[in-house]
């Protein structure tokens, strides 16, 4: 794990370039090659943004969890740095997911917002991890902030399945599930070009994510060092 992080840190530029290429190919495939959906038409192409965004956000939150747990266990600064960086990126991608979902919803459902399970859950995720970032910024002592955030990172992640269950039950117990849901991936009868577009877009998103993560992580690391040096040099 540490080895991979080291490698990613050093080869950031290559990662960034690769990411850009993957994204470009993904864009081409999503917008030009993949055919429009039989029911939703071209609007369905937003799915090539939406699914990768939310999956990347979930990955991010998993990393927050891992970083938080490792930090509480080993008390090594780098785990805390990872958790913080991942939380920031997670919030970014979750916000984007909500915006994409909203834009997709307007032509398909007729409204900019609906309290359907998926969107609601994503909004809750945004609230939880924004809270995480706020918690960090409001505690002055670094070590306390890291510990407090780590606890929140763990609890938040463990709560997610419970939140998921409760929101889904609430939304489906009395309402029949709608047939045309923008978030349901039609795995049967799917055109191969659509699947390819999805996969390439996802790869592009992942690479962009890890590139940004490595940058953000390094910024956090540098800030750490700056603080230490300031103390040492008496600045």
């Amino acid at each position: 794990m540490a080895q991979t992080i080291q490698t990613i840190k050093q080869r950031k530029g290559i990662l960034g370039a690769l990411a850009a290429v993957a994204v470009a190919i993904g864009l081409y495939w999503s917008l030009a090659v993949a055919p429009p959906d039989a029911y939703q038409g071209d609007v369905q192409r937003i799915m090539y943004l939406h699914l990768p965004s939310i999956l990347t956000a979930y990955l991010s939150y998993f990393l927050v969890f891992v970083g938080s747990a490792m930090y509480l266990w080993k008390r090594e600064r780098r785990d805390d740095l990872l958790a913080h960086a991942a939380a920031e990126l997670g919030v970014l991608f979750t916000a984007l997911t909500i915006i994409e979902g909203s834009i997709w919803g307007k032509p398909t459902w007729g409204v900019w917002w609906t309290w359907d399970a998926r969107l609601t859950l994503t909004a809750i995720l945004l609230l939880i991890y924004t809270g995480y970032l706020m918690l960090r910024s409001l505690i002055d002592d670094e070590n306390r902030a890291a510990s407090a955030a780590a606890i929140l990172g763990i609890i938040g992640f463990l709560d997610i399945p419970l939140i998921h269950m409760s929101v889904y039950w609430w939304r489906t117990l009395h309402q029949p599930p709608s047939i045309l849901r923008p978030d349901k991936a039609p795995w049967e009868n799917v055109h191969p070009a659509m699947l390819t577009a999805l996969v390439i877009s996802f790869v592009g998103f992942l690479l962009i994510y890890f590139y940004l993560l490595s940058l953000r992580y390094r910024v956090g690391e540098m800030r750490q060092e700056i603080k230490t040096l300031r103390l040492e040099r008496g600045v």
Partner: protein
Amino acid sequence: MELLTQSYLLLQKDLRLELRRRDSLLTMFFFGTLLLFVFHFSFDVAADKMAEMAPALLWLAFLFTGTLGLAQLFQSERENHCLDALLLSPLDRGALFLAKSGFNLLLMILVELVVMPLFWILFNLSSWNLLPQLFLVTLLGTVGFCVLGTIMSAITLRARARELLLPLVLFPLMIPVLLATIRCMETVLKTGTFNDAAPWLRLLFGFDVIFLTLGVLIFDWVIES
């Protein structure tokens, strides 16, 4: 059990302090009742509509009242370096967690025992026979609130704008409890039995068990000097 004995000791201390000055208890009582009045003015609806909204309104009141209690929870420890003293002692931190959540639970139960019948009176509800069942559901929900809330109260202890931060981090995580408790109460009010609400009850119970256990296990890391 060692853990429970220690928790009981700590709980007794808090209870004794509270019985002397009754600060938290009275504030919570008053605030809970005040909210009922605010609801009356805010919701200009027919009586039967009010009956439908009862669980939700009750739980909003309890949520805000409980948060008041949580904000006060470690107040006595913050003064006079009591927290440091506690941490230096060989007490299991899990015992501190149980004692504190138990204390907040007791406060909230006392408030709920008053506010729930009060709600029924003020809003002219008729389903008095269902109050015991409704109270049981509220109890389960309150346990979940106190357990998670105590952890959140502890980790925000040293934060700036703590009164704002505590609800901010707590409320999103409370959503399963909120949904489960309110929907369960609504079902009980509608059908008179727990049958249809079984999945909600299971969720609630699961939530309580998970975070109670988690709290005891991780409170070591939660409270640091």
